[in-house]
């Protein structure tokens, strides 16, 4: 009987100690929230080093892109404690700062010797500062990104294709230098038989529900010189948003959609772009740099078969900004551990490994490395794109502004309603209403 009691006491003690150990381990875990895509897998791999160094466990909450903004903004607005760290979109920075969702990092950066001068200026401006361009930092640049293009290099290099293109356009078939050339090439491939199958020109973003068509069309708008305001910070949009160049760019994007995309891509975004390219439907497609390492490794269409090019200029060099900064959530109960992660992540050695695993570092030590341009076939284009990126509004009311643009663009481009001029005029009316509600106009 005595032995029986002793056994039970041992089991009880063991269970309690085990429980304490578990609780202790859980207290050390932090949760990082991001979108579910290729770079997130690289970050999981990278973060193992952080756990090994500090003993702090990492949990991840990855949400598919179409629901990412909805899910995360709901989480922030409800003061949720799910995420200790958030790699949030650049456009959220205004809302994150003004609504008190993000922790201001200036004091922490000063105390830890983290300098924003060590990161590419465009990424610091876009991912970290609010108000824009001021030295008030709410995030550390985590993932540089921009919208760019990839193409079927193997098709471009076929002699019969080269010959046919030269006969039609009087020049060699090569990655386009301008938006107009892009359309010519897309038109050339549209409906063309290659290897016994009908191929199409391009895949471009046309998605209605989240941000797709805006991110795609701004690639053309920026290249034509589109501006959101005549004077930065004044919200004077008349003549800027609906300038003749903006109208021409929008008409161009619609024509590109009508003439040269595969049937059925009326609601196309990142995944559809990858699908159409990997299945051999299109000669060219737009997407974020983040997907390029995966595409290059693809057995069917990667390696020698794929080439990359930066968003072609028209009037100016410009690319649509993607990418995100990493922020500490103010509602987190593990802010100290979260800040430790940021300190660790900002180290040059970690940033170098981040790039090697497939993440896009914005750290100067990585970008300015002499070997960087040749480290990947798209690295030089990435550098070029990041030198001329432009972003959507980053205002606290960004979601409202984005939804208005989604609607006006989709109505005009996909649903054939009205003219480009009308679409942009209506967009100004929508945005004016939003800024009036915000008390900014």
């Amino acid at each position: 009987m005595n032995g029986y009691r002793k056994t039970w006491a041992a089991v009880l003690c063991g269970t309690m100690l085990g429980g304490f150990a578990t609780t202790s381990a859980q207290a050390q875990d932090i949760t990082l929230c991001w979108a579910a895509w290729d770079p997130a897998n690289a970050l999981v791999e990278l973060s193992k080093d952080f756990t090994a160094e500090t003993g702090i466990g990492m949990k991840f909450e990855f949400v598919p892109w179409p629901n990412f903004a909805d899910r995360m903004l709901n989480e922030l607005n409800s003061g949720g404690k799910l995420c200790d760290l958030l790699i949030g979109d650049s456009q959220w920075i205004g809302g994150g700062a003004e609504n008190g969702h993000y922790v201001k990092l200036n004091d922490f950066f000063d105390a830890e010797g983290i300098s924003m001068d060590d990161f590419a200026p465009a990424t610091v401006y876009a991912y970290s500062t609010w108000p824009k361009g001021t030295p008030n930092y709410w995030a550390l640049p985590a993932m540089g990104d921009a919208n760019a293009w990839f193409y079927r290099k193997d098709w471009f290099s076929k002699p019969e294709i080269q010959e046919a293109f030269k006969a039609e356009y009087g020049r060699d078939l090569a990655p386009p230098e301008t938006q107009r050339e892009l359309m010519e090439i897309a038109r050339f491939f549209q409906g063309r038989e290659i290897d016994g199958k009908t191929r199409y020109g391009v895949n471009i973003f046309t998605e209605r529900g989240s941000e797709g068509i805006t991110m795609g069309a701004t690639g053309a708008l920026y290249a034509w010189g589109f501006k959101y305001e005549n004077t930065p910070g004044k919200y004077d949009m008349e003549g800027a948003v609906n300038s003749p160049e903006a109208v021409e760019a929008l008409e161009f994007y619609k024509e590109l959609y009508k003439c040269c995309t595969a049937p059925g891509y009326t609601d196309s975004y990142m995944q559809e772009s990858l699908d159409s390219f990997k299945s051999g439907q299109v000669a060219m497609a737009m997407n974020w740099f983040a997907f390029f390492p995966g595409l290059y490794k693809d057995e069917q269409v990667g390696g020698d078969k794929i080439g990359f090019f930066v968003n072609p200029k028209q009037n100016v060099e410009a690319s649509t900004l993607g990418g995100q900064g990493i922020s500490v959530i103010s509602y987190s109960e593990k802010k100290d551990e979260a800040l430790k992660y940021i300190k660790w992540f900002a180290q040059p050695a970690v940033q170098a490994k981040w790039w090697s695993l497939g993440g896009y570092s914005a750290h100067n030590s990585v970008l300015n490395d002499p070997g960087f341009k040749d480290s990947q076939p798209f690295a030089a284009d990435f550098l070029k794109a990041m030198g001329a990126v432009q972003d959507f509004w980053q205002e606290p009311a960004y979601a409202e502004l984005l939804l208005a643009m989604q609607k006006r663009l989709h109505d005009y481009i996909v649903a054939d309603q009205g003219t480009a001029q009308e679409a942009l005029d209506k967009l100004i009316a929508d945005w004016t209403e939003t800024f009036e509600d915000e008390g900014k106009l």
Partner: protein
Amino acid sequence: MSQMQISQRAADRLARSTPHGIARRVRGLSDKAIAWLFIAPTIVLLLAINVFPLIWTVYLSFTDFRANRINRAVEWVGLRNYERVLTDPDIWHNMLVTAHFLFWTMFFQVLIGFALAWLINKNFRGHGVWTTIILLPMMLSPAVVGNFWTFLYQPQIGLFNYVISFFTGADPSSFQMIGSVNLAPWAIVIVDTWMWTPYTMLICLAGLRSIPDYIYEAAEVDRAGPFRTFWSITLPMVMPFLMLAVLFRSIENFKMFDLVVELTSGGPGSVTELASINLKREAFEKWRTGLSSAFAIILFVTVFGAANIYVKALNTVKSR
């Protein structure tokens, strides 16, 4: 021993076993008070999860509250939100899209549902198996149906386009059901009809089976033809059931969200953007809580008013 005596003895036994304190307290209560005591938790729950949110929504509809900025001062804006909703051309467009969707889904579901019920009611061999097969779509999740039909409608690989091509000779890739401004409103009508016609069929079948055989026998004695029998007996007697089916489906389709979001997200452009989809965007993407509350109240009053008028009409038909 009668059933009554057994119950009485059981009640006495229960009363004796009740502790004195509780018995004394309960003894002082009237039947009405005890009844209230039993239903009070349910009423409190209903007030908390139904009535209070409704009243709160009415209050919010008169303010500029935004749920994503809780710390911002809330201002009373009077009827401004209602004015904005009622004068917004985009919202009127959504209402038109909803009306189109509602009318045609009801039309096809009643027509096909009644025809199917009439056939199933013939009790042919294997009608039980056919009933089960016909009911299957109704049992699926709208999200699954939406995704499933997105593939069927795909112009390059979708089965739907190939079937149409087989019958018409048109190139399958030459038309896009969910990408075309003209076809997309019909694409969502087709899917909703496919999914919910079985429901109308079930209700019609119940109506058809409730008609006593002797009425048909009397009509036969009176030498009434099939058309006359259908027009004077079948249809009037099934009518209350049909109207009930239309009421239930109309209320559901007025609120339709998931199926259409999965299929088209309201596109292309806004041609399939139902009122509920825009309401969700206003409330949970743009975070205009005050304005979306006003929008929700207007939709609620519309459905409530229309349903009341309809129920009165239903009662008139039933009383004939």
